[in-house]
């Protein structure tokens, strides 16, 4: 008969620290890292594509180095944002056993997103621009 015992606490046991926020945003929060990844990915891809269209391929060595430095800086910022968000959520959730699932989900997604962002350094550093 144990399944009959149901109290309010049991139904409601995934109450978050910031449950005032809109439901949609709370649903998407564990994927925060991936949203940053998407923005970063689009930024470097579109940036490179538009720069090549505008004639970066024919530009001098200095201009190209500056452009690559901007891409590297973007990557560093994006990584910092993702890691920072994960650390913040970790602090919020670590003492709440009910929130373990959410915490692991958030941190795991952030970890994979971080790899996705950091790996963009390989093309930025190793592949000739606009060839």
């Amino acid at each position, binding site marked *: 008969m144990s399944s009959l015992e149901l109290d309010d606490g049991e139904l409601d046991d995934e109450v978050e620290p910031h449950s005032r926020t809109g439901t949609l945003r709370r649903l998407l929060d564990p994927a925060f890292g991936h949203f940053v990844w998407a923005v970063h990915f689009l930024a470097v891809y579109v940036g490179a594509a538009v720069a090549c269209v505008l004639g970066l391929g024919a530009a001098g060595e200095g201009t190209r180095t500056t452009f690559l430095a901007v891409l590297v800086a973007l990557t560093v910022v994006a990584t910092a944002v993702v890691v920072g968000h994960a650390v913040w959520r970790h602090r919020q959730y670590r003492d709440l056993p009910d929130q373990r699932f959410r915490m692991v989900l958030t941190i795991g997604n952030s970890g994979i997103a971080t*790899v996705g962002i950091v*790996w963009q350094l*390989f*093309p930025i550093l*190793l592949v*000739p621009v606009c*060839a």
Partner: protein
Amino acid sequence: MGRDPRLILILVALSLTACGGPQSALDPAGPSAASLHRLGIIMYVGATLVTLLVTALMLVPFLRPRERSVNRNLFLWGGGVALPLLTLTALVPYVMTVGHETRAATTPQQVSIDVIGYVYWWDVAYRRPDGSRGGAAANELHVPVGEPVELFLHAADVIHSFWVPSLAGKTDMIPGRVNRMVLQADRPGVYRGQCAEYCGLQHALMAFDVIAVPRPEFDAWLARASQPTGQPETPELRQGRDLFVSLGCGACHAVRGLSEARLGPDLTQVGSRRTLGAGTVPGGVGNIAGWIASAQHLKPGNAMPSYDQLEGPQLRALAAYLESLK
């Protein structure tokens, strides 16, 4: 299931040894294809090892049921995260450095060729140093051995893709765009290429040859390709030339010194071509005659009509004339 890894190994070994074929990426004859092949071998070996590992791990619980519970961290962190993370952190940077040969810079002395894809054949034009159109060919690229050759790839109608597996990877030909690639053959020979992007009804019959010859031989060939054709010497050949003109062949085909049209393949040296109809049938007078009389039967849907109203002797004369163009 237990036999499969071995089967895979055998097949992988087979794929590495059975390299033959005039159109094989496993038989590289140029620096670009060779570096891609090297990358391939590394990945074949890696993939085989991972497949063996996964297959073995997956079968173990059936062979030897365990009593203790499994070490989750070893599987999830070790197999799930560390394995792909480490192997790919090694592989990805390497991949980034491979294959730049096909986009390398070239010097002005080197050969530059415009290749234009049509449904379903290839127009080939050698650029003079001033950029104008020099010697021309169709469905055949003659290149000097051991030199990087610069190709400018265009499309006249739909998307095609230029691919000679033994020499380099493929590059698409896209209407409205010009793609550039660099190609080099390290040893003399004939390398077969084929359209690799589906381009309509006869996509299957859109092949070409890259003929790599030593530089002097190449120069001689290019000189011939740039000169007007000679006057026909026998009455039959003269009749053939007259037919070429009167039937309107020249409205589509160029024969240097006779006609300049470029709607169909340049026929200035058609007599020496290895194939007709972009690889549909071999060259030679018999096939030329067959092609003229029944192009729509041999390669339905191509742009050339079947000239099936010719009398026997006329057909022979026209075929003989074309065969004499070398």
